[in-house]
């Protein structure tokens, strides 16, 4: 049976997030020939509707309200439930993002529905769809299905390929929702993530460990990351030593990332760190210690001083890019 599937599309810093295009592709697969309807919530978001259609949404519904300017689970919850009421979907896909992680359990609870979180691959389609997700911090995987009710999943950014963008046409309509009784008031957001590249969505990550030795030591890593359009991350050791903020920590406690390219500089490769990055597509390790554990998961390794190697690498990339 084909399904009608809703996708929560997200914007960040005035642009649609990649994960929203990936979510549309996932929704297509779950829909099994059914309709994919993207949902945009915010204070002014209708301009993004057409692009969601270009990435494969059949239709777009926008809910605009001043109370949706910042995400709150109450505001977004009321708006999304109103869309569900109007559309009666058989499937829902969110990105496994800060918003998706926070909102999806609430919606699932209201629908008394099962929810498969943090999906990295979908096998089969329509009613036969099976969801693959990492467990034990990526040391194992499980395949899950939803036994009854709505098919509700969140997908991990950077794992499911979006559809090719092409100029398409589809209806973009707005729904007016009364949003009341917000129990949370957002006062301020302090930007800590550098250069606007989100660690969880970055295609390239340059990560440093204790071997970076100081906060200043991260400068050459940042330079390489900037050149490659990537983000800087860190091991727990580097965060504990206060070289960088905990928001950059990759590992079992910290973020789990799956970039196309992960460059680990001065990281020994403790299990705690490997749990957060070992599913990256290509791993490069740079470490002085040839016995370092990180070389066991690396595709390519250079035994050497990161303060020599990283700037040379930046230079070399600059020549060819």
């Amino acid at each position: 049976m084909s399904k009608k599937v809703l996708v929560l599309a997200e914007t960040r810093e005035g642009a649609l997030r990649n994960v929203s295009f990936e979510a549309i592709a996932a929704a297509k697969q779950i829909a099994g020939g059914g309709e994919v309807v993207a949902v945009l919530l915010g204070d002014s978001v209708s301009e993004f509707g057409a692009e969601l259609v270009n990435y494969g949404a059949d239709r777009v519904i926008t809910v605009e309200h001043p109370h949706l300017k910042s995400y709150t689970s109450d505001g977004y919850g009321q708006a999304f439930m109103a869309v569900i009421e109007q559309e009666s979907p058989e499937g829902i896909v969110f990105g496994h993002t800060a918003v998706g992680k926070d909102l999806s359990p609430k919606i699932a609870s209201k629908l008394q529905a099962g929810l498969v979180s943090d999906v990295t691959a979908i096998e089969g389609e329509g009613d036969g769809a099976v969801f693959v997700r990492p467990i034990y911090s990526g040391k194992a995987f499980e395949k899950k299905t939803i036994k009854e009710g709505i098919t509700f999943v969140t997908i991990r950014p950077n794992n499911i390929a979006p559809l090719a963008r092409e100029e398409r046409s589809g209806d973009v309509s707005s729904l007016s929702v009364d949003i009341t009784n917000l129990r949370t008031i957002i006062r301020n957001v302090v930007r800590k993530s550098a250069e606007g590249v989100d660690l969880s969505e970055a295609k390239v990550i340059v990560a440093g460990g204790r071997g970076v030795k100081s906060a200043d030591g991260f400068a050459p890593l940042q330079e390489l990351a900037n050149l490659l359009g990537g983000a800087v991350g860190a091991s727990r050791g580097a965060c504990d030593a206060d070289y960088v903020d905990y928001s950059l920590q990759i590992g079992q406690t910290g973020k789990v990332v799956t970039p196309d390219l992960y460059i680990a500089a001065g990281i020994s490769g403790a299990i705690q760190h490997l749990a957060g990055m070992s599913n990256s597509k290509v791993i490069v390790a740079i470490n002085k210690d040839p016995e370092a554990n990180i070389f066991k998961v690396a595709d390519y390794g250079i035994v050497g001083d990161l303060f020599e190697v990283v700037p040379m690498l930046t230079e070399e990339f600059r020549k060819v890019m």
Partner: protein
Amino acid sequence: MNIYVLVKRTFDTEEKLVISNGKIQEDGAEFIINPYDEYAIEEAITVRDAHGGEVTVITIGGEEAEKQLRTALAMGADKAVLINTEDDLEEMDQYTTAYILAEYLKDKDADLILAGNVAIDGGSGQVGPRVADLLGINYVTTITDLQIEGTAVKIVRDIEGDAEELETSLPLLVTAQQGLNEPRYPSLPGIMKAKKKPLEEVEIDDLDIEEDDVEPKTETLEIYMPPKKAAGRILEGDLSTQVSDLVGLLRNEAKVI
């Protein structure tokens, strides 16, 4: 203040994982309190010490989870509750877990409920917000700072690396993110005292729950290890050769740049 902490006993992922007959082998493995739940316990104790009241830690599981509850009591929690589902429930999922916890909590008048933002085994992060929704109270996830004055609450939460400052009020459920605090180790006197602290055991029958109410909505078909990666390649030659080789390999062989 009436404070509850939702705790999960988890496989220590520093351990080597072995799968046989489609199940994670638990024999002889070390189990711990989910690390994010430790932040929640620590914060609960801190809030109680500042505002008075009582901290109750709750877990769902079998007899063996008593060990993690005793650890939480040794850290400084006042009471513990084990909801023992061992004999009643074969399969559970986040829907089930949240339902049971909410049934237990619904008449407890909790002012503040804390949990970890995610468990390092299942990794879904659903249970906290689901429980809050079932109880009809507000929730804030991945918090890194908590200030309470009367019923007014100021929170800083981590949103993908950025820090969001917000205000809300009790009653409230929060989930802990790393950076919230440094969980204390149980002291020796703490461990001695914990042995005498109350640990209540309840079963599904003691709660207002029919077994049909807690049928899981999802099903696990298979658990498996990721395919082993082929051994990597350590580059050779002088450093500048290695660096230019690496750039070539990333562009032409791995095709990631």
